């Protein structure tokens, strides 16, 4: 047992001294991550985007078109900022992104409706800004449908149909959309909850690469691992070294996730403890991934480049923004290799879908088993590195 404990303790002590001596290194695993997570939560603190500016081009100037204007103005997601007289003005405002959409009402709008013909309202929206235009499309459609239903209802009433019957006759089969799990489609929950672990994933792999890579860069591998390292002692030394960043980043992650759930009055129906166990698993795996990249390439710089390549686009590949099942086969294969993809599915299932734990037991096991295997491999690679002192000190 001492064969394990003494290298573990001395490595942890050595790392603690080093962290105390280097404010930069300490900052990168403590207050910088904490501040970065707080920043993410702050960015999305508004919850759902509201008051997106749109314009109105009313060429009809009728009571009905003004009513549509009032409906649009009353929609919380929209802010009716200006009205335009012609298309050139509207296009210019769209191009300047003064407004993200323009609702255009044609000249014979109310006349057509009085004649019992179908009329059309046009929404020009800036599709280059996907989120903005998606929200505006939804809200404008709702406003127009409301107006349309009002027109249809009054027409039916004029034909002598009683009001109660009308509602059913107008839509014989109604669709009730129940958005499960993320009830208000609150983006704070959706994005901040997904981005904070993505951020910590980057920071953890960076920290893993950094604390092992520094020994290589400064050519102090023998001081760290001892003169005659064995696989158990190297594993213990690695564990001792990585325990500080794991502890620190784990606490930051725990505080952040608890903060944006319970702290904002969101009590997820799934198990937060399970999610935190998964998050610690993700962080542990990221740390050993960084260590393995350094020990494998024998270069701190290359390992940091690899960290950028693996972790920085992990969010884009995770399926949170663009679904996994719509990706090209090979891209999906890469996505499935990334630990973040599996972690975020686990988190979504617990925090937002309230799924029983057994559905994510596989991902949880995977995260921790991969950590153990990769940790063992890193220790082997460290032994190999220890035998090649001529390659230490590379930049």
């Amino acid at each position: 047992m001492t064969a394990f404990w003494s290298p573990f303790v001395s490595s942890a002590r050595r790392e603690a001294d080093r962290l105390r001596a280097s404010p930069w290194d300490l900052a990168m695993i403590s207050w910088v991550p904490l501040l970065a997570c707080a920043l993410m939560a702050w960015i999305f603190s508004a919850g759902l985007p509201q008051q997106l500016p749109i314009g109105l081009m009313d060429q009809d100037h009728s009571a009905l078109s003004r009513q549509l204007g009032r409906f649009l103005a009353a929609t919380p997601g929209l802010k009716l900022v200006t009205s335009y007289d012609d298309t050139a003005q509207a296009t210019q405002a769209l191009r300047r992104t003064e407004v993200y959409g323009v609702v255009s009402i044609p000249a014979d709008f109310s006349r057509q409706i009085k004649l019992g013909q179908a009329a059309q309202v046009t929404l020009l929206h800036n599709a280059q800004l996907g989120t903005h235009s998606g929200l505006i499309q939804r809200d404008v459609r709702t406003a127009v449908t409301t107006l349309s239903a009002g027109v249809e209802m009054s027409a039916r009433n004029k034909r002598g149909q009683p009001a109660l019957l009308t509602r059913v006759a107008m839509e014989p089969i109604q669709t009730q959309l129940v958005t499960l799990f993320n009830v208000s489609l609150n983006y704070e929950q959706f994005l901040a909850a997904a981005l904070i672990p993505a951020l910590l994933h980057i920071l953890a792999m960076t920290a893993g690469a950094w604390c092992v890579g520094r020994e290589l860069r400064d050519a102090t591998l023998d001081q760290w691992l001892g003169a005659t390292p064995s696989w158990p002692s190297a594993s213990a030394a690695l564990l001792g070294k990585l325990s500080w960043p794991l502890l620190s980043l784990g606490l930051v992650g725990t505080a952040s996730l608890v903060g944006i759930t319970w702290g904002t009055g969101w009590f997820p129906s799934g198990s937060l403890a399970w999610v935190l166990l998964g998050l610690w698993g993700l962080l542990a795996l990221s740390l050993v991934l960084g260590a393995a990249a350094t020990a494998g390439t024998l270069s701190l710089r290359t390992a940091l480049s690899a960290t950028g390549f693996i972790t920085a686009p992990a969010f884009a590949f995770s399926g949170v923004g663009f679904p996994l099942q719509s990706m090209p086969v090979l891209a999906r294969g890469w996505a499935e290799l990334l630990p973040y993809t599996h972690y975020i599915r686990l988190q979504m299932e617990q925090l937002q879908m309230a799924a029983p734990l057994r559905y994510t037991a596989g991902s949880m096991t995977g995260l921790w088993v991969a950590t153990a295997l990769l940790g063992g491999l890193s220790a082997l690679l460290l032994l190999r590195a220890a035998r090649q002192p001529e390659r230490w000190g590379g930049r």
Partner: protein
Amino acid sequence: MGTLDKLWRSWLFTIKTIAKDKGVLLIMGLAPLIYGFFYPWPYGTQTVTRVPVAVVDLDHSNLSRQIARYVQASPRVEVRLITGDEHAAQQALWAGEIEGFAVLPRDLKRSVLRGSPAVVTVQANGSYALLNKAVSYGFSEAIGTVSAGVEIAKLEAAGQGKLQAQASRSPISTQLVALFNPTEGYGSYVVPAVALLILQQTLLMGVGMLVGLWCETGQNRADASTWLGRLLAFCTVGWANGLLYFGWIYWLQDFPRGGNPGGALVLLACYVPAICTLGALLGVWFGNRERALQVLLFTALPVAFVSGFSWPSESLPPLLHSLRWLAPSTAGIQASLKLNQMGAPLVDVAGLLGLLGLLTLVWGGWLLRVTRLRQP
């Protein structure tokens, strides 16, 4: 030695240093090229189609089967499972086999025939925005079509003509016109903006690394013309990368592009120096070769979300709304989208370009101040 001569020598020396330094070359030269293909990769298909769903049919009538057929015909969704058990659908949802389901209630057909309300419940997974949209639209459209058919049949039975019946069913419709990104592809929405961020991050890290190394060896202390030559050398690499994206990668990936090519060049002329001066200043602050990578790797995420292309800037807290302009990418992304994708004239982005110029002056002035030669 004349100032110009010194500047030219310093430019040449820096270019050579970059070319010989494997690490810096990888990040400044090769990484933008790799990310130009790697980042758009997952979005290759651009749209979300054939999302797996289930239909829970509790009615077993010809009407409910008609709805199931209409859902099957929708390109947005693909029916993987038709079942009479709602619990089975819920389990498939948790297991990730389907992303949503519709429940057709027991007496659907009877209610419709009797003229009493019939409600189909559609459950979609709100945790994933695009899947949720595909599922709810796919079901709504199919059910809406069946519902409209029933209503029009009833109106016709009441004596209205077919066209008349269609018009009185839905008197006002909305026509949606997508501007600038006409196919509404996801990749063509995200990648043109992220491209500017990739340019910024790779350049910041490369410059920061090299300047950090110079600090270790004391080369950071130099006169203004030497520094100007160095900065111009960094900019040269940055401009080349910018041209690669605007000219080749946008075209290769078939993103909306070429709205205002002249304007895009002016943007690059302003954007790249703002990044290079900031990168050099950060490098001096870090004073260590690898520190630039360690500190800057994670910043891409927060910087992307304050820039206003995916999260509406109207929804940012007021203080953050002002602070975000300190990163060149905020003005760079907005100006690039306007020039390249929306085809705006240069005058529409004059303010953004002015801001980039101001950032260059402030960062550059600060840099020259902290790196000036010590008086002997």
